[in-house]
């Protein structure tokens, strides 16, 4: 059974590592980010931070999907 779960556990573990890295990046770099001269509105600054964070998470989802799909198709083709 462990052989069956192995790949899913690896995917979950890698995702967890990436998520922790993303949380660290967002909380330590993006959230305290201050734009020199400042943007006209606090809301706009917040919106920009949310947009960058959203972009990072979307990129993560895209790469994750691509990797799993590639692995799955290759394995199926081998069989």
């Amino acid at each position: 059974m462990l052989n069956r779960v192995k790949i899913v556990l690896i995917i979950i573990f890698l995702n967890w590592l990436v998520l922790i890295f993303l949380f660290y990046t967002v909380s330590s770099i993006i959230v305290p980010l201050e734009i020199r001269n400042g943007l006209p509105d606090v809301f706009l600054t917040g919106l920009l931070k949310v947009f960058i964070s959203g972009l990072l998470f979307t990129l993560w989802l895209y790469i994750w999907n691509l990797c799993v799909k590639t692995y799955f198709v290759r394995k199926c083709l081998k069989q």
Partner: protein
Amino acid sequence: MTLAVVSILAILLSFTFTYISLRYYIKFAILHGITGKDIHKPDQPEVAEIGGICIVVGIIIGLVFLFSFILENDFKVKVLSVILTLIIIATVGFIDDLKTLSALKKTILTFFGGVPLLLLKAYYPYIKLPFTSFARLYYVYPFLIPVAIAVTSNAVNMMDVFNGVMPLTSLIVLTCIALTAIINGHFNELIICLVVMASLIAYLPYNKYPAKVFSGDTGSLSVGALIGVLSIICKAEVVAFIAFMPFILNGFHTLMSTHGLREKAEIIRPVIINEEYKLEINKSPEAPIVLASLFLINGPADERTLIKCYVVASLFSALLALLTMYLMYMVS
């Protein structure tokens, strides 16, 4: 009555009602033809459907009892918002069980599950992240609530495919939320979590392999919404997200491979039964890649093995969630 006694009674009420009512409901459902085929068994037996009603009513009874005895206003608001969310999502699920809703309609309707939390302001607009203190999200947090409820409810619904998988994996996620509530000092919210868990524990013997009852969308959407609500009110967003990873993995790959929201009937089955009555991957290019496909990539397996795989994956995620909790509260 003290809060401790009321809490224990609420938990017992939720458990007892769900357990006893399901016994009678199964007989009632079979007698009135409220059944569905268990397609992963060789003889495809008829199994009682929409058993989720008993879970929902059990939880509501427990929470209403709790609500009638508590004095603290903040706690009352939280209990009320959980009850209202549960009623909204259970109604959506029940309508879907009776008359299949389109996938888009169902998803949009689940967004309304977040409305009680927003209207009653039963949330704190910040998130505790690992390696840092709290991230304030005054403007963004309210928008994230309906999204969270819709994502969790639909992800649990997508996971409810094999006997016992939904209650077992949901209980694992709820345990992580309960532990975070203890560490956060949210003991009132912990009681709500335990009431929900009691009802799911009572449902498990009826749904475990070989299942006597299915929860239907009424049950799976409601349990998913409750996971979302509890992670918000217990301030366990990040921990719950990590523990919820197998659900996200399953839901996300289904969505990506079907290129958008599709109703179950529109999707080609990702798993088929072979001549030896074992489950194997459907190798059709149109079949979606789900968690079960990844479990079956090394060859066919019986349903029991697959159920164990789901539980192991959930336990592993829960372990990582607890590690994250350690990073969040002990290290930073």
